[in-house]
């Protein structure tokens, strides 16, 4: 049985939608678990697959990418590019023995502070029972 730990989730949010949703959650005093650490990029299209791999390699228990809803990208279509990369990357992440719950891409608009809470809370609740993430070496052994 995996022991209960507080998972640490690296979140990469786009500047125009999800980062603003996180700000809105703040100004609305919406409470959610303190497990995420947000890195801001201008667009979810900026998320290099290496950022995700690096985060898992450095011990993140989960990676959450947040972008604008389809059609709403501040740069027209960066979020679609992100989605394409995400689908490919997810297969790779799976191959490495990392559970699907640990890697998510969510569309959260600037007005969806409440949705940010739902997503973060859900992700934390799903990751917590999985316990600490095993490293690739541990999985192959």
């Amino acid at each position, binding site marked *: 049985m995996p022991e209960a730990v507080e998972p640490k989730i690296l979140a990469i949010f786009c500047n125009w939608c999800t980062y603003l949703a996180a700000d809105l*959650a703040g100004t609305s005093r919406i409470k959610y678990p303190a497990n995420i*650490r947000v*890195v801001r990029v*201008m667009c979810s299209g900026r998320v290099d*697959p*290496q950022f995700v791999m690096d985060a898992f390699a450095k011990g993140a228990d989960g990676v959450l990418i947040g972008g604008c809803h389809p059609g709403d990208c501040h740069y027209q279509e960066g979020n679609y*590019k992100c989605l394409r990369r995400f689908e490919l990357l997810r297969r790779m992440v799976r191959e490495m023995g990392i559970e699907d719950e640990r890697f998510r891409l969510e569309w959260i*608009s600037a*007005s969806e502070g409440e949705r940010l809470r739902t997503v973060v809370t859900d992700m934390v609740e799903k990751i917590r029972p999985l316990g600490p993430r095993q490293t690739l070496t541990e999985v192959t052994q």
Partner: protein
Amino acid sequence: MSEEIRTGVYTCHCGSNIAATVDVKAVAEYAAKLPNVVVSRDYKYMCSDPGQDLIKQDIREHKLNRIVVASCSPHLHEHTFRTALAKGGLNEFFFQMVNIREQDSWVHADKPAATAKAIDLIRAAVCRVALQKPLTKGSIPIHPSVLVVGGGIAGIHAALTLANAGKKVYLVEREPTIGGHMAKFDKTFPTLDCAACILTPKMSSVRAHPNITLWSYSEVTQVDGYVGNFKVTVTRKPRYIMEDLCAGCLECIEACVYKDGKFVDDFNMGLSKRKPIYIPFPQAIPQVPVIDPETCIDFKTGKCKKSCVEACGERHAINLKMKETTEIIDVGTIILSTGFQVFDAHRSPEFGYGIYPNVYTALEIERLVNASGPTSGEVVLRDGKRPKSVAIIHCVGSRDEKTNRWCSRVCCMYSLKLAHLLKEHTDAEIFNFYIDIRTPGKGFEEFYQKLRNEGVHFIRGKVAEVTDWAFDPSEEGKLVIRVEDTLLGFARRIPVDMVVLATGLEPHADAQEVRRRFNLTCSSEGFFLERHPKLAPVSTFTDGVFLAGACQSPKDIPDTVAQAGAAAAEALALIDAGHVEIEPNTAFVLEEDCSGCRTCIPMCPFSAITFSEETKLASINQALCKGCGTCVASCPSGSIVQNLYDDEEIFAEIEGVLSNA
């Protein structure tokens, strides 16, 4: 790097906003021990003058060359602190901001967890800032013309302000006339000014102003470009009457084969009929009729004797073959003043709108009490009789879990105004049914008191239903209001002749489409979102696009006009500055590493990347690059670098966040 990194970390208390949930002292002590950190301080309000002075002083005294401030969102004060760096003699991009308020202390209750999070984020920023490079902001020129979208009172006021300042303004209105909702009102609260007397002169000024190009019956269909340099496509619908030839004599309307109006007149809220060729109201601007092809016999059958064309005669202003046209204009700034739509009372069937003929919406009553309305100001029921008693139901489509949750702000006051006007016109007994009376404006409370003295009844309670089911003879033939009077504490039945629904304000049905066209965000209700509710109330997240009026949130005429003035001032400030500074977060190609694979080229939505057949290398046009970084993430050889969001900076941030994991 040869230069020694000397970082200063400043953790803000924000009064108790941060300090109540994050152990600021512990955070500052921790930060002091991080690599490269020379100074670590905590201070009550970092954004204040003394807070900024701390940074400037430390830059000088401790030879700091990197600054980290842990406080609120960078969207709020990044600019403030960057300016402090610049004043302290440091490149403003040697700065990283840590958001420990909106994204930490305000969203977490557990102090140790919030403190641990703040520590992680500050460590990440300290790692990142060491790798940041000095940058210079770009500068782009601002085209001096302005586009104003929506010709209600907000758009009119903004356009006139700008035009009077000598700027070229394009005013685009979707309806055949400008004037918006205000043109339908009889009087305005609380002064009971005649709406037409204050609006129509402004409308004429728009028409006459040499700096304003008015395109009514037109819509913005495409917006390209960016602040200072927008290219806007306006589609002009055919009104079948040439504006430049029409003299506004309206004889064509007189001459129409329909002797009387036969079709629903939208301007009068369906309370009167119009002909296929019509002018929305006598003072419409432009003074040019419009032909509705849906109802015109000639368009439907091709067999009309075209008496309108005959009446126009030598002028030849009527052109039944008119086609839709497009105009493409260059503007530097845009003001959106697209207004609101009125809540559709059918959505709250308990109030009987559309079921009982004598249930009206407030806007219908505006037309009924209006001297230029369908009844010339005579307030009569559908059967022509004068009402002896009237119920005004507040908050229809406002403050209601089933429909719209927000307060529409204007309904209390316009209900009071209508109560006064109805009483004046009919001497009827007036009952207001309200949840709360909200009169927080200049002269509003006094107006409420005046109404109470006039003998208007106020009953506190949310109306359960409007019914024609009579329980006793006194209710026969009447509409009965069933309500719990929450001040008396029992349920009441009040029979009346006429019911007025104080319908709320909501975003236009196509607000989402418009939002996308102008690259804006909406608040959760669907109104356009301002950049900051207090610091940038008319700006948006798209630079160069400003908001005015009820498209941003419900507001009354004084607030709308004030906001329109503010939006015009913001546009003027940009134009008169002549240029705007832009974030230097563009991407560029490291030529020595580029393999010429062209992966990046289709990634760019702005066609900023080109491939040179000669050198077999990609290059990025700095003027076209918007700095999203999508190409950077796609480059297989890592040869594209984004300023401010360089790979090594982000990797450092990730490592910093997780190094304690």
